[in-house]
C-alpha cells in the first residue's frame, strides 16, 4: 500500500480519474462546506486543490473503541472511499488495511521512510504514558508509547482524532488505571491538531484533512489545539434551541410538555454551554439530526475531562461533589468550633464579671 510521493497534482490526478471540471467544482463546494468555510471561498479552494499533492497518512489506533473510525467511515461528504482514493494516501490503518501482521507493520515503516518529514499521523485512542505498564496496550509486541514516538519522529504533523487521543478520554477517567495520556501530553515537538469528540463529527475529521490538503498548512487552532473553524463556537451559541434558553423555556423531564415542544435542555444536564463543537451545524448521519435535535442533552464529549465533569444529567451549574451531607457536617464542625470559641469568650465574660471591681466615688474623684 505504500505510495511514492505523488508527482502529479490533485487536479491532474482527478481528471485522470475521469472527473470533469464541473465535478471538480462540485468537489470544491463540498470541501468548503466540510471545512466550514463560506461558499464564497469555493473558487479559491478550487485553485488551491488544483495544485495540491496527495499526502501520505498513517493512522495509529491505541486505547480506543474504533468508534472514531466508525464515525469516519460513515462520513458522507465526500465518502472516505473518495478521500482514500482521491485525496490522501492512507498507508496504514489497522482496521481498514488489507495487509496483516508483518506486512502491515512493514507498510507503515515504508511509508515513514518514503515520506519522511511530510506524512501525517492520525491517532485515535489514548496512550499508556511512559511511566505506565507498557503491557496495557501493544501492537505487534510494541507498546503504544513506543509506536507513537517512533512514528511521530519524522511526521509533518499529528492529528489526534477523538477525545481519547485529544484529551485522554474514557481511559483517562478517574482513576485512570492505565496511566492513559493524550497525544499532546506526549508529543511536544510536532504540531498536534485535536479533533475531539466521542466520536468526532466525521466531517470535521475529513475537513481537517481537506484543509491541510487545500492550503498545505494546519488550520487555526483554539487553546486546546482544535481547529477554530469547527470548535470556535459552543454548541449553545449555535443551538437552534437557544431562543428557548433566552426566553427561559426549559424541558424539566424527558417526557414533559417542554420536552415535547422542543425547549432548552439545560435543566436536563445539557453541557452545550461549555462545549465547543460543530454538531449544531454539521449534524450527524448525513445531516439528518444531532443529539439535541433528537431531544437529548449534549454530553460535552468534545471537552477535556468530560467523563469526570459531572453527571450527564446534572445541569452545568451543579457542583461536582458538594452535597447536603458535606454542608451539614461542616455546619456541625462549625457549631463545635463556635461553641469552643464562644465558651472561651463566655469564660472571659464570667471572669470579667467575677473579678469586677465596683467603681467607687473615690476612684471617680481621682480622675478629676
Amino acid at each position, binding site marked *: 500500500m505504500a505510495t511514492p510521493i505523488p508527482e502529479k497534482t490533485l487536479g491532474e490526478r482527478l481528471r485522470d480519474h475521469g472527473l470533469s471540471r464541473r465535478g471538480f467544482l462540485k468537489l470544491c463546494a463540498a470541501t468548503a462546506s466540510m471545512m466550514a468555510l463560506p461558499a464564497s471561498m469555493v473558487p479559491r479552494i478550487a485553485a488551491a486543490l488544483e495544485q495540491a499533492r496527495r499526502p501520505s497518512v498513517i493512522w495509529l489506533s491505541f486505547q480506543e473503541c474504533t468508534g472514531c473510525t466508525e464515525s469516519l467511515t460513515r462520513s458522507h461528504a465526500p465518502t472516505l472511499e473518495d478521500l482514500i482514493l482521491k485525496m490522501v494516501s492512507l498507508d496504514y490503518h489497522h482496521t481498514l488495511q488489507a495487509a496483516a501482521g508483518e506486512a502491515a507493520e512493514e507498510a507503515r515503516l515504508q511509508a515513514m521512510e518514503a515520506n519522511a518529514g511530510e506524512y501525517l499521523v492520525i491517532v485515535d485512542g489514548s496512550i499508556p504514558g511512559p511511566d505506565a505498564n507498557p503491557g496495557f496496550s501493544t501492537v505487534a509486541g510494541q507498546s503504544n508509547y513506543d509506536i507513537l514516538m517512533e512514528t511521530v519522529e519524522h511526521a509533518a504533523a499529528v492529528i489526534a482524532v477523538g477525545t481519547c487521543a485529544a484529551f485522554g478520554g474514557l481511559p483517562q477517567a478517574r482513576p485512570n488505571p492505565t496511566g492513559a495520556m493524550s497525544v499532546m501530553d506526549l508529543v511536544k515537538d510536532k504540531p498536534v491538531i485535536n479533533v475531539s469528540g466521542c466520536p468526532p463529527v466525521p466531517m470535521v475529521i475529513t475537513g481537517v484533512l481537506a484543509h491541510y490538503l487545500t492550503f498545505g498548512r494546519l488550520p487555526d487552532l483554539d487553546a486546546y489545539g482544535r481547529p477554530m473553524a469547527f470548535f470556535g463556537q459552543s454548541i449553545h451559541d449555535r443551538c437552534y434551541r437557544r431562543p428557548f434558553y433566552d426566553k427561559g423555556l426549559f424541558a424539566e423531564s424527558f417526557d414533559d410538555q417542554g420536552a415535547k415542544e422542543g425547549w432548552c435542555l439545560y435543566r436536563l444536564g445539557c453541557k452545550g*454551554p461549555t462545549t465547543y463543537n460543530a454538531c449544531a451545524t454539521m449534524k450527524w448521519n448525513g445531516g439528518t439530526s444531532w443529539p439535541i435535535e433528537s431531544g437529548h442533552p449534549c454530553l460535552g464529549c468534545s471537552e477535556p475531562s468530560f467523563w469526570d465533569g459531572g453527571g450527564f444529567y446534572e*445541569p452545568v451549574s451543579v457542583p461536582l461533589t458538594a452535597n447536603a451531607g458535606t454542608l451539614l457536617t461542616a455546619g456541625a464542625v462549625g457549631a463545635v468550633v463556635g461553641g469552643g470559641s464562644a465558651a472561651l469568650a463566655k469564660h472571659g465574660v464570667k471572669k470579667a464579671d467575677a473579678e469586677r471591681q465596683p467603681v467607687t466615688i473615690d476612684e471617680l474623684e481621682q480622675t478629676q
Partner: protein
Amino acid sequence: MNSAMDFLLWTKGPMFDIAMVIFAVGLLARLVEIFMLGRATNYAEPRATEWLPGFRTVLTRSVPDPGTFQRAPFNVLVGWIWHIGFLVALLLFVPHVELVKGVLGISWPALPNPVVDVFTAVTLFSLVATLVHRLTHPVKRHISTVEDYLVWTVVFLVVLTGYLAYHRLVNPYPLALGMHILCAEIFLIILPFTKLTHIFTTFIARWYNGAAFGRKGVQS
C-alpha cells in the same frame, strides 16, 4: 493541564467543597458564638411579650420610616434595588435553582432568563452607585473601612462575572463560568468573617431589637 475546562471543573469540584466547608464552619461558628452569649435575665416587669414584636421588627425593618426615607432617599432606594436584584439573580435564576437542587435537593420555581438579566443589569448599575455614594457621602466615606471596599469588590465581581458569563462575553465560556463560580466561592468564604454575615445575623439583630423595644411596649 492548565486549561479553562480544568479551571471550571476545579471551581465546581474541590474548590466548591472548600468554599462550602469554610462557609458552613464559619457561619455556624459565628451563630453559635452569638447565641451562646445569651442575654442576662430581665427582671423588669414587661409591658408585652417579646416574640411577636421581635418577629414584626424582623419584617418591618426592611422598610424605613418616612422621615428616614426623606433624609436618605438615595441610600434607601439604591440599597433596596440592589438587594432585590441580587436576591432575584441569586435565588430565581434557573442555573442557581438547579445548583441548590443539586446540592440540597430542594427547589422552587425560577424566573425566565431575560427577567433575571434585567435585574442583574440593574444590580450592577446600582452597585456602582453604592460605591460612588460610599466614596462621596461624608458619613459613608468617613466610616468606611478596607473591609467595606473588599466586600463591595467581591459582591460586584460575583454579579459582574455572572453577567459576563450569561452573555458569554468572555471566551472561552468555561473560563467565564469558572470565574463566576470562583467569585461566588470567595463570597462564600469571606461571608462568615466579614459584614456579609448580616445576611443571616440581621434577622437575629432585628429580633433582639424588636424584642427589647416590644417588651417596653414600642413596636420598633
